[in-house]
């Protein structure tokens, strides 16, 4: 796994930006993935179809990429199954409580300079940095 990938990451970012732009320009909606996912888990009246179609696009797109570049799905960090489940619980609960994740707040919100999204993004970045500091440097990656 390569450590620093500025070119690939910039291209990836542009593709993500295009995905969000398509949703905005054609459907008039914010591509906030945690909210879309919630609308699939707990069927969202009137919006279930397009939300499911979006998640379908993620799954199919991910599947195609996995066929060609499975190495880009490497986990690379040592965590127990319990650790991953707890992480998922926190992400699922936290993104619903805070109304958004990296896509809704981080990409869509920041690009229109939403005050709530700026605060949310700074908060989840800081919390992520603190968590990695504690787990990797203080606890030695034991989880």
């Amino acid at each position, binding site marked *: 796994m390569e450590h620093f990938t500025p070119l690939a990451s910039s291209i990836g970012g542009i593709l993500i930006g295009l995905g969000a732009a398509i949703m905005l320009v054609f459907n008039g909606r914010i591509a906030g993935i945690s909210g879309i996912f919630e609308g699939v888990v707990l069927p969202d009246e009137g919006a279930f179809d397009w939300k499911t179609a979006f998640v379908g696009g993620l799954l199919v797109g991910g599947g195609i990429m996995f066929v060609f570049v499975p190495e880009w799905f490497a986990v690379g960090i040592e965590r127990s199954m319990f650790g991953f489940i707890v992480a998922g619980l926190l992400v699922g609960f936290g993104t619903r409580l805070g109304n958004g994740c990296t896509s809704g707040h981080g990409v869509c919100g920041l690009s229109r300079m939403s005050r709530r999204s700026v605060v*949310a993004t700074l908060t989840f970045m800081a919390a992520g940095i603190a968590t990695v500091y504690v787990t990797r440097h203080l606890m030695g990656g034991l989880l």
Partner: protein
Amino acid sequence: MRNVIAFISGLFFASGLVVGGMTQPKKIVDFLDVTGNWDPSLAFVMGGALLVNAVAYRWVQSQSQPFFDSDFYIPQRSDLDWKLIGGAALFGIGWGLGGYCPGPALTAVVSAQTSVLGFVGGMIGGVLLYKGFDRIALSN
């Protein structure tokens, strides 16, 4: 047509997340590891995405409606409350712990690795738990 657009948007997201390196939890954790061997790649992902989307947002402001709907559905709230900050903090802890955020986790689900399956299972549990919490503690 809206569903087709949503599907295509999902395809773009998936390819971008994979190419950008976001389906590799180690790259996320390395990005958040600012005091260690820092990997700034994720900043380039965010930069690229923001650049494109900011242009789209600017253009959209001169439009009265999107192509396939009668209105734009853009959040208008600007208040800061404990839910926003507390929720973002919990999300950040989970992100640093598991190295996945919702988009990359769903994109990587087809890889069927136990790590991502556990994470997405937890995410579903978290969404349901929030719904219950919202109903009991926040309904007023």
